C-alpha cells in the first residue's frame, strides 16, 4: 500500500514538474536577419603591375597585367581601380598585402603577381588573388611558358580570377571565328577570319574568292564547319585551323546548309534542301553516314544540339510561321517551344544547358533573346534594325551576335555590320572591334 502511495506521489511530482515546464517563459531566440535584396555592380578590383626580375621581363609584366585587367573589365563584372589611386604601388606577390591600404581605396579584390625567366629562357608567371575584406588569399597559380605565349597566360590568369570570384568558368582564353566583310553591298567579299576573344591575333582563313557563311567551331578539335559556294554548289565544308585544309562534308544531291557540331564533336547536324522543303540530317564524321531526322514539307533548319547531346532545337515553319521546336536527338518527340508574337530563328542551346538563345523578328524589328528549353521565361536582350546570329561564350554567360545598321542610300553607303557581346543579364553590351565589317560570329570552346 505504502509502495503504491509512494508511486502515485512520484507520478504526481513528475506531472507537476512537467506542468511547470509547460508554463511559458521568456525564451531568448537569437536575432536573425534575412537579406533578400542587393545590388548588381562591378566589383572594384586592383591589378597592380606584376613585379618583374629585370627590364626584359618588365615589359611582359606590364603587358600581362594590362590584358588581365582589360579582360576582367570587359566582362562587366569587375571594375579595375585606377592605378593612380593605389597607396601601395608595388605590392609583393609573395607576402600578404597590407589590406588596409586597399580597403582605404574601396578595393575588394587584389591581384598580385610576378614575372621572371628561368634558365631555359622560359617565362615564369605567378599570381595571387586576395580578398581584401576577408583578408585571405583566394587562389594562387604559377605558369611556365615561352615568352611568345604571354598573352594566353594573361587570359588564363583572368579566367582563374573570374572563376574564383563568380563560380563560373572563364571565357577569356577563347577565340572567335567570324565572317569578315568588305566591298560594296552588291559585290560583297566575305572571308572567314579568326581572332582572340579580345580582338587580338586577328587573321583571315580564306581568301574571299568564294562566299562563306555560318562558321561554327568544333567543341573538341581545331576545326570549323561552315557553308560556302567554293565549288559552285553551296555546300557545308570542314576547315582545319591548324593545317588550313578544307573538305566538303557529305555528298548530297541538294544544297546543304546551317551546319553545327554535336557536343562530342563526332557529328554535324545540318539542313539539306529537298525540293521546296528542307530537312534536318546528322552526319557522322567518322563513318560519313547521314541520318535523316525530320520529314515534312516545311523548312526545318538551324538545328543545334543540347549540351548533353540528347535533344536538338531548330526552327521550322511547319505550323505556318517560323517558330522554335525541340526534338529528341533521334528526331522523335517534336515539341514547339516558342509561342510569342513574331518569328523566331537561329536557336542556339547554351553550353550551360539552361537557356536557348534566338533571333526574333517582330514588327519589323530584330531581337536577340533567350528562353528556357521548355519555352518559358522568354527575355529579349538586344534589338535593332538587324541583330542576328547569337553565339554563346563557352561558360554560357555571355552572348555574341552581329548588328547591322541600315544604308543611307541605294549604293549601301553608311551601312555597317559589327560584332557585339552582351551579358546574360541583358547588361554590358559591347562592340567587339574588328578591322572591317563583321557578321556571323562563332565562339570557340576554351582553348585546350
Amino acid at each position, binding site marked *: 500500500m505504502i509502495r503504491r502511495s509512494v508511486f502515485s506521489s512520484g507520478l*504526481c511530482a513528475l506531472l507537476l514538474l512537467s506542468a511547470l515546464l509547460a508554463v511559458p517563459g521568456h525564451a531568448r531566440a537569437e536575432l536573425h536577419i*534575412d*537579406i533578400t535584396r542587393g545590388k548588381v555592380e562591378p566589383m572594384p578590383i586592383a591589378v597592380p603591375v606584376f613585379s618583374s626580375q629585370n627590364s626584359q621581363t618588365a615589359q611582359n609584366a606590364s603587358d600581362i597585367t594590362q590584358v588581365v585587367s582589360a579582360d576582367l573589365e570587359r566582362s562587366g563584372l569587375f571594375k579595375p581601380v585606377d592605378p593612380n*589611386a593605389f597607396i*601601395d*604601388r608595388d605590392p609583393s606577390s609573395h607576402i600578404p598585402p597590407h589590406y588596409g591600404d586597399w580597403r582605404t581605396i574601396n578595393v575588394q579584390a587584389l591581384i598580385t603577381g610576378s614575372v621572371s625567366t628561368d634558365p631555359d629562357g622560359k617565362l615564369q608567371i605567378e599570381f595571387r588573388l586576395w*580578398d581584401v575584406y576577408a583578408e585571405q588569399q583566394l587562389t594562387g597559380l604559377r605558369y611556365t611558358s615561352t615568352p611568345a605565349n604571354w598573352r594566353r597566360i594573361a587570359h588564363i590568369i583572368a579566367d582563374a580570377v573570374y572563376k574564383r570570384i563568380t563560380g563560373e568558368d572563364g571565357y577569356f582564353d577563347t577565340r572567335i571565328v567570324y565572317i569578315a566583310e568588305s566591298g560594296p553591298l552588291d559585290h560583297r567579299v566575305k572571308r572567314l577570319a579568326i581572332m582572340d576573344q579580345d580582338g587580338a591575333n586577328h587573321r583571315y582563313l580564306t581568301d574571299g574568292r568564294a562566299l562563306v557563311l555560318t562558321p561554327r567551331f568544333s567543341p573538341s578539335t581545331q576545326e570549323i564547319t561552315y557553308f560556302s559556294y567554293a565549288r559552285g554548289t553551296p555546300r557545308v565544308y570542314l576547315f582545319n585551323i591548324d593545317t588550313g585544309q578544307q573538305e566538303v562534308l557529305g555528298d548530297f544531291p541538294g544544297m546543304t546548309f546551317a551546319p553545327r557540331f554535336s557536343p562530342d564533336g563526332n557529328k554535324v547536324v545540318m539542313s539539306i534542301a529537298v525540293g521546296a522543303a528542307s530537312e534536318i540530317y546528322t552526319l557522322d564524321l567518322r563513318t560519313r553516314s547521314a541520318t535523316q531526322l525530320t520529314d515534312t514539307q516545311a523548312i526545318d533548319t538551324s538545328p543545334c544540339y543540347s549540351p548533353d547531346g540528347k535533344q536538338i532545337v531548330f526552327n521550322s515553319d511547319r505550323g505556318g510561321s517560323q517558330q522554335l521546336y525541340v526534338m529528341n536527338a533521334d528526331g522523335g518527340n517534336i515539341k514547339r517551344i516558342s509561342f510569342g508574337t513574331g518569328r523566331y530563328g537561329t536557336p542556339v542551346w547554351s553550353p550551360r544547358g539552361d537557356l536557348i538563345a534566338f533571333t526574333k523578328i517582330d514588327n519589323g524589328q530584330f531581337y536577340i533573346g533567350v528562353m528556357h528549353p521548355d519555352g518559358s521565361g522568354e527575355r529579349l536582350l538586344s534589338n535593332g534594325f538587324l541583330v542576328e546570329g547569337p553565339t554563346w561564350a563557352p561558360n554560357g554567360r555571355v552572348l555574341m551576335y552581329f548588328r547591322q545598321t541600315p544604308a543611307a542610300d541605294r549604293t549601301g553607303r553608311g551601312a555597317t555590320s559589327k560584332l557585339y557581346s552582351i551579358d546574360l543579364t541583358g547588361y554590358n553590351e559591347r562592340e567587339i572591334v574588328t578591322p572591317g565589317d563583321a557578321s556571323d560570329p562563332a565562339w570557340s570552346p576554351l582553348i585546350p
Partner: protein
Amino acid sequence: MPERRDFIYSATLHLLVVLGFLISLPSLFHRPIDEQPPIVVQLVNLGPKTMATQRSLTPPVPDKPVDVPTPAQNQPTPPTPPEAKAAPPPPPPVPKPAEVKLPEPPPVPAKPEANPQPPEPLPKQKQQEVAFDALLKNLAAKKLPQQTTQQANTKPQQSSQPIAPLGSQLSVSELDLVRQQIEQCWNVPAGARDAQDLTPEFRVTMNPDGTVRTAQQLNPERNSDPFFQAAADSARRALFNPSCQPLKLPLDKYNQWQTFTITFDPKDIS
C-alpha cells in the same frame, strides 16, 4: 487506519495534480509566440521613416566613389621597398604557402584533342526563379520592375525580432536600417546558374561599436559548389565592407545584437 491516511494522502496529491493542470493547461494550448506578429509594429516606436521598402537594386547607387588619394597622401605611406621582399622575414603575416600549382603545362598553340563540353543538367524550373529573373533585363517587360516591387512590399515581412521584453527589442525601423545597410553592400550573384538557390548563412558576432567582429559560415559544406562558394564570399564581403560599417544599431540594445544569424537569399530580388 493506515488505509484512511493513505486515502487522505492520495486525495491531497490528486488535488495538487488537478491544481497543477488548471494552472498550466491554458499555456499548454496557447503556443508561445515564437515570432512577432505584425502587431508588434504598433507597439514599438517607428523611426521617422522606414527605408526598407525602397528598392535598392539596379541601377546601383554609385555610392562611395573611389577616393583617389592625393599625391601628398601617397608619400607618407611609401610602398614597401623592394628590398623588403628580398629580405624574407618581414612582419610575420605568415606568407601563406599559397596553393601555387606548379608549372601548368605551357599553353602551346593547341593540338586538337578530344575535350568535349561537359553536358550540364537542365536546371529545374522553380517558382523562385521567376522572381529572380526580374533582376535580369528584358526589353519586352516594361512594367515589371514596379509590379514586382509592389508585390515585394505588400508581402508580410517575416519579423526577425527575438522574444524579449518590449523595451529592449530592436524596433522594426532599426532592423530595417541594418538590413538596408547590408543590402547596399551585397553584390548579388545575378546571372549565375540557379542563383536563387545560393543562400549562404552566417553567425555574426559584433563589436559594441557596430563593426563586425567575426562571421562564421553556417553552411560551409555547400562550398564545394564553386557557385555557392562565390556567393558565400560575396556575402562575407558585404558583411565586412567598410562602406557599410559600423552597422547602425543602438548600443543600449547591444545584448540583442551582439550575435545574430544572417541569411543572404536572393529569392525576393526584384
